């Protein structure tokens, strides 16, 4: 009797082993049966990622630098940022990190586009229905807290080492903020303003696109910012499962204690993050002209 309190009543070792075996073999047979079709499902994404990476790598570097500086100006309307990004990219190239940086840029761009394309509609759906919110919230919590390697394992078993698992790893980790903040932003839209839209006979679509999303933009852009930051933070992890880019030299630096190599590549990741963010935030601010302070009137 006393034994019951001192020792936790565990499953017997054999049962536990069988239990794990059942799960493992079930998943293995699942991956054998459906692995290929799942792989095919991700083919378009893979194709786009490869195409984009090749485009970045095959375009002569001066053109890339000019395009980046030009995009900076288009997005944020700031000469300072354009020149800053021009110098940063020149330095990155000079220090021998050009190709890795292009690979990382391709991965992050595709990951961010995917996260926004899935995350914003999901956030809108959550804002419209308390039931959907109750369902999705815990999933987002899991996505953000579950150790990366734990969900990477089944992904690797299904798809093998490569770009797509890397992309999935990045997206799983980076998507929750954009979903959460879109949901929050839309829920926080002033009820009085929505009532006015109702009183003038606006339908659901007119309310969503004309009132709710524009007024939720500050929160949505905060979400995009978080998503980009988290995606870049995942670059090193992604490199562990065979994604090329700035993560691989960092990984080597950790294994061999190359301080300078680690620092340089790490800072290149930081520089990318800052440029991505400033451009998008600048663009977001221009979408929200009404928040500028005018002195007269």
């Amino acid at each position: 009797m006393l034994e019951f309190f001192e020792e936790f009543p565990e499953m017997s070792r054999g049962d536990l082993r069988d239990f794990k075996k059942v799960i493992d073999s079930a998943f293995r047979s699942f991956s054998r049966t459906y692995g290929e079709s799942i792989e095919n499902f991700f083919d378009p994404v893979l194709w786009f990622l490869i195409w984009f990476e090749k485009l970045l790598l095959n375009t002569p570097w001066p053109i890339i630098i000019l395009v980046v500086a030009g995009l900076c100006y288009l997005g944020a309307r700031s000469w300072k940022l354009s020149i800053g990004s021009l110098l940063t990219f020149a330095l990155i190239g000079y220090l021998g990190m050009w190709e890795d940086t292009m690979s990382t840029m391709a991965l992050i761009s595709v990951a961010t586009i995917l996260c926004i394309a899935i995350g914003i509609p999901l956030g809108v759906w959550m804002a419209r229905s308390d039931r959907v919110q109750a369902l999705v919230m815990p999933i987002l919590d899991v996505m953000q807290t579950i150790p990366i390697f734990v969900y990477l394992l089944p992904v690797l078993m299904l798809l093998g080492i490569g770009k797509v698992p890397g992309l999935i790893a990045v997206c799983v980790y980076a998507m929750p903020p954009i979903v959460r903040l879109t949901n929050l932003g839309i829920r926080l839209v002033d009820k009085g303003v929505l009532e006015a839209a109702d009183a003038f006979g606006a339908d659901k679509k007119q309310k969503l696109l004309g009132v709710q999303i524009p007024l939720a933009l500050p929160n949505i852009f905060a979400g995009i910012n978080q998503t980009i930051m988290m995606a870049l933070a995942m670059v090193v992890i992604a490199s562990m499962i065979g994604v090329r880019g700035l993560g691989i030299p960092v990984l080597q630096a950790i294994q061999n204690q190359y301080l300078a190599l680690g620092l340089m590549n790490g800072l290149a990741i930081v520089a990318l993050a800052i440029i991505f963010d400033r451009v998008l935030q600048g663009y977001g601010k221009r979408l929200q002209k009404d928040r500028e302070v005018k002195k007269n009137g």
Partner: protein
Amino acid sequence: MADNKISIKGLYKVFGDRPNDAIQNIINGMSKEKLLSEHGSVLGLNNINIDIPAEQLHVIMGLSGSGKSTLIRHINRLIDPTVGKVIIDGDNIMEMSQEELREFRRYKASMVFQKFGLFPHRTVFQNISYGLFIQGIREEEVKERTQVWVDKVGLTGFEKYYPAHLSGGMQQRVGLARALATDAEILLMDEAFSSLDPLIRNNMQDILLGLQEELHKTIIFITHDLDEALRLGDEISFLRDGKVVQRGKPQDIILRPADDYIKDFIKDINRSRVLKVSSIMENETKVFGPKIRSNTSIEKALPIIASSDKGLVTVVNAKGKTIGKVTLKNAISAIERPSRDKTNRYHYK
């Protein structure tokens, strides 16, 4: 009933979990207090019946919590009633489908809000054109029609400003123009001027009265301010605890308050400014002393009466025909505040 633009019939609204059970109790005579303590439901509106003829400016007057903002939202069904009908031009709003209701809101009734309800991300011009934009009218026509209203409410030059850059009074002029721009026949105004300071409020009342003279809309105007109600209303409905306690023309309400609650309400107003000589005159067809128009306020009539030889003036109608006389005694007793017990001491028409 065909003459009434808006007809509210037997409207009840209960806020709570099981409104349909609660409403049966109310119809069977349960009190509001008992409903709250036994069912946890709040009675918002209690058997409202109001008929509003076309082109009338109808004021619904009541203190906070009287249900007036709830009531106005039933007219365009921003709130659904528990029981009752709202009939507009013969159609029951409560039976409309979502699609019909949207059409109704787009073309027939527009609304002005206490807190303006402007779209912060749209400019003044884009705000005023919102109703037309929702109607899906082509751009040039929207521009043309919007500009008319921008000019009419005196916002010319401010088209490209955002609401946050404007003062409260200007913001509400945007709200008013936005509502008028759709050319809806019905204008719902929910404490539209209550959050403005007194001088601006007066100015907005002038604008509204000026526009109404030209436009002849059917206007429901909600307010808690008696002076505003008396100044604007063709007719006033007094709302208290979700019930209409009195309904009538401003003159009638002042001369014949239905109960002590309304008496308390009107005791501090400037009676001489609100009351017209037509309300206090004695019938007469002969001409005595100076002539004054029947819609002259007592305030303006008093000096004329006082300076006349016999303390007597003749009242004429708009066509100049003699219809009555007013003595100094009539005028002074009319502006005396009524005591709580005596009523109907005045001769009125």
